[in-house]
């Protein structure tokens, strides 16, 4: 049986504020099960979040939680991790938060290889502000600020982070909470910057504007993708030793653990300098 992880929630704050059918809570469930499976004590857990629907989840986790400013969660988290390397620091961010206003912080956190686990909720829309386009909205999709179809191409967050030097890059989806949990477990165990982008759904805006149905229908649409990528998500040999195995290509997005590399971790390097008293 999968465990009941509600003990990791601030139950007196529930129910959470997210809309009916929103996929974000599924992702949080998978995350908490990964935390539970790894036996991370709540007192060692810090959750840092930016602004947006996904970032509001931080406040429901019974840990040290920091709800910061729009796009900047990774910078706050880097400071916290440097000050308290013993903490497991998880960053919750959305596609607008992490890839638009916070894009600079994302690439630099990846480049520095700070030991953070960054979970980016990609629902291709700005939910909190009412359904505007996000940097992950594919061309042609309708949003409140793209009533005639989005004229821009979308970011591939995983490719961006890998290019910036992230040492663990993966993509999963809310439809596959078990595969997601497995990936999150590995991301949490990874020493360095890990980036897990999770496809999730906004039935209230993205679903409605694009006539895709409600929560269940949006999950079904992920299921269609899942058929092609499910095996890869579960296959631990998916990433070859050189970390460059080809991954499934679905609507331009690749799924699974897409990249893994070993590089010195920033916090460790900084404190090593401190221990040497500044001697090079």
């Amino acid at each position, binding site marked *: 049986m*999968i465990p009941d992880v509600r003990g990791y929630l601030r139950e007196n704050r529930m*129910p959470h504020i997210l809309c009916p*059918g929103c996929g974000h809570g599924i992702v949080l469930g998978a995350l908490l099960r990964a935390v539970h499976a790894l036996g991370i004590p709540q007192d060692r857990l810090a959750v840092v979040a930016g602004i947006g629907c996904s970032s509001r989840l931080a406040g429901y986790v019974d840990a040290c939680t920091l709800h910061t400013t729009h796009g900047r969660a990774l910078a706050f988290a880097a400071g916290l991790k440097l000050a308290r390397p013993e903490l497991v620091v998880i960053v919750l961010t959305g596609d607008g938060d992490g890839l638009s206003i916070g894009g600079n912080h994302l690439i630099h956190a990846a480049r520095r290889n700070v030991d953070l686990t960054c979970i980016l909720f990609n629902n291709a829309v700005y939910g909190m502000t009412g359904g505007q386009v996000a940097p992950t909205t594919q061309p042609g999709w309708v949003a409140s600020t793209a009533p005639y179809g989005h004229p821009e191409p979308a970011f591939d967050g995983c490719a961006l982070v890998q290019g910036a030097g992230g040492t663990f890059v993966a993509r999963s989806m809310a*439809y596959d909470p078990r595969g997601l949990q497995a990936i999150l477990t590995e991301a949490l165990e990874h020493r360095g910057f890990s980036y897990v982008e999770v496809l999730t759904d906004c039935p209230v805006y993205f679903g409605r504007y694009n006539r895709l149905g409600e929560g269940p229908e949006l999950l079904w649409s992920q299921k269609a993708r899942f058929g092609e990528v499910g095996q890869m998500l579960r296959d631990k040999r998916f990433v070859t030793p050189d970390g460059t195995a080809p991954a499934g290509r679905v609507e331009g997005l690749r799924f699974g653990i897409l990249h893994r590399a070993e590089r010195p971790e920033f916090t460790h390097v900084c404190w090593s300098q401190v221990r040497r008293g500044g001697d090079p």
Partner: protein
Amino acid sequence: MQTRNVLVVGVGGQGVLLASNVLAAACLARGYDVKKSEVKGMAQRGGAVVSFVRYGERVHSPLVERGRADLVLSLEWAEALRWAAYLRPGGVLAVDLVRILPPAAQLDHRTWQASYPAVEVERLRQAGWDVRPYEASRCAAELGDGRMANVVLLGAVSRELEFTVEEWEQALREVVPEQVVEANLRAFHAGRELPLASVSPGDVRRPAARTFRVEVTASWCKGRSCGICVRVCPEEVLAFGPDDRATAASPDRCTGCQLCQLLCPDFAVVVREEVAVG
């Protein structure tokens, strides 16, 4: 000597491989040639597992053909039925009477109780096999750890094989983890003294049914406008109640897959297994 053919069978998690490793170690201790091969079936817990062990002066193939096995050591009743056909006429079928519902049986989960085979030892005896039923799991549980049923059953059949007690003990010490060697030695000797289980003809005892409880925290549920749990449940256990919140309308149909719990974005659904009392 003639090459001896042994099958150790059971379901995932029962320790089939450990039991066959002990047997193989005993063979080596005696100086036999030994070949061993395994089909781990589904690697997950509950999947069928079989291990072939062949030993003698000189052994070439690791595989045993149907109708050629001297001994089938089965850690589970239904698995004994599955593999009995491998026995030669007069071959020994040592079987633990524990009954574990295999995943395959769950395909017929609404009526699965009837799909589990009855314990009909006499019918097997009529087929010409030397059937030795044991309550090995119960014995192991009484010793303090039900997981040692494999070693208890090994102990029970050890008298039928040519190895000395010392060779068995040496094999156990080699194979089982150091911290549980003593416990396993006790299990082995308890198995050596274990009497045959008395099974009346027509015993159709079946494993206890697994039942599940679906709990919905109504105040966290966002109801019909979400609707994910109601829609994803393959057994249509969940429905909307008068308050528009999800509720377990047909709880007895639940098979414990927990899709509802995994996919509820609001942490409102939890599935628990009911623990049978008595």
